[in-house]
């Protein structure tokens, strides 16, 4: 699927994750930047989870800016799902 617009989900709070998704040209692939206080411990698992949700939504071309403040996996999944639904206009939210 192709992203329709920029979207964000999550917050800068401790134990949360802030995800900004932006559409890119078709064929550009997934550009994922992750900043995390627990990157050393969980960087790989965070990345895996992000790809998993992108696969679920069949999104191949996207730019993601991710600021993680130690979110556990269910939180990462929830924020990722929300940001995708917003960017794909599957959900009408207040934050764009």
């Amino acid at each position: 699927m192709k992203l329709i617009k920029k979207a964000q989900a999550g917050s800068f709070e401790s134990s949360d994750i802030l995800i900004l998704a932006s559409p890119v040209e078709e064929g550009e692939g997934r550009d994922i930047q992750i900043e995390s206080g627990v990157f050393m411990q969980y960087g790989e698992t965070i990345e895996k989870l992000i790809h998993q949700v992108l696969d679920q939504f069949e999104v191949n071309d996207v730019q993601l800016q991710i600021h993680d403040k130690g979110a556990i996996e269910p939180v990462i999944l929830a924020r990722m799902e929300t940001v995708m639904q917003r960017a794909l206009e599957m959900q009408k939210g207040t934050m764009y």
Partner: protein
Amino acid sequence: MRTFNFLAMNKNKIGREIPKNIEGIGELEPYSGAWKKLKKGWMDELTSPPPNKAKMPHADKVCDTLEEAIEKSNPKDGMTVSFHHHMRNGENILVRSIDILAKMGIKNITLASSSLNESHNPIIKYLEDGTITRIWTSGIRGKLGQAISSGVMDLPITIHSHGGRVRAIHTGKISIDLAIIAASAADEEGNATGSTGKSAFGSLGYAHIDSQYAKQVMVVTDDLVDYPCYPLSIKQIYVDFVVKVDSIGDSSKIASGTTRITKSPMDLRIAKLGADVIENSGFFNEGFSFQVGAGGASLAVAKFIREKMKRKNIKGSFLLGGVTSYGVDMLNEGLFKTIFDVQSFDAAVSTSLYNNKNHIEISAGHYASPFNCGCVTNKLDIVVLGALEIDLDFNVNVITGANGEVRGASGGHSDTASGAQLTVVVCPSFRGRISTINKRVQTVVTPGETVDVLVTERGICVNPMKPELEESLKKAGLNIKKIEDLQQEVEKIVGKAKEVKYSDKIVGLVEYRDGTIVDVIRQVIEE
């Protein structure tokens, strides 16, 4: 850079590998148990004599500048310079003094500050250029900690407890050539205090021992008062030089307001459980003595204990330690008879220390040194402490962060844990996805045999060495779990973390209060 080849290692009582000997530091004695060395009744090491000094009547000690005083002290390569950390992040005398010594070309300095914090980041350059080659401290934070963890120094730093530092000075392991003691008020003879003046910071407890043992002692103040200056925290009989400066630091960071109890629902929940544990421990009785840490859940326990004391009409004997305005409020309400103050945490405490005869300044040795006829921590009934991590053996880490870097302080943690009848560790079960309960802590500061109970929002774990305590807490209906089960429970939530990678190079030694080595800190390998 020298490379280290440790030929031989010893395993200490808690299974940590301790090198037998480190070139440039000497032989290391492995930790053998919290009270093993005390049971003897004396210390095997000899105490080093304090220096002999004399002054002619009416001789002048006052110097106009810090530069002049430091020059007069005739600094030499290889010297040991000591400082105290009573001004916390507002302190600026340490960095200024090292700047002066560096400009004079002094090399190979041993820095012996009672602790180091983020205001001391500017000294990193002196670790790189060989001005400072050895460090003794209770704690390190910020970029300085990261630099040390990345291996900027050849010799490992030594982390001591507040009580352990006094022991190390008594035995001459820390042999201070020049003690530079900042004070918020002093007179021309060097009588000095931290409890009055524009930069008042409260107790000067950590600096007493420096003044008595340093070969030369310099009092630095921004408030030179008419003779005599009192209360006599530092006494003129020990002081060689008195320096008047414009400012000993940033008073907004030294003496800022009052300490507030946390509003974090998680911390308050943990604190409430901690207070419930204390209430049902058998130690919450008339005349009990009490110490809490100054931050987060630990301080919040005091709020709930205060309520319980009022409800049950229980009065305590003394409050100990790092003192906050919250403790002062409890003193003023008559809930405790006395405060013994080795370190003050906010402005209101300095005022109380100055005005209230029941609020008493004590030295670090009186507070926590293991080798005297009984420090005050030995009289402590209940202590509430924090933790960065705790392991299945109840060993506590308060010195290295999740990424392996030095970012904490030993402080009075192991001293109070060893002395108190009931040692309660309060902490959330995880912080920002980092579990606080691990199979093995990265660095042990306080050995598990001195820790009785862990309180988290997810459950309470009692050290198996204290079955009666577990029984009475269970009877009170508290949620008691095995620490192994809690560790698994938390790991399921946060996931298994990738472990920190360390090299063989030892960047820090963690001394137990009796001078044995409880653990080592290794260089972190950045990926």
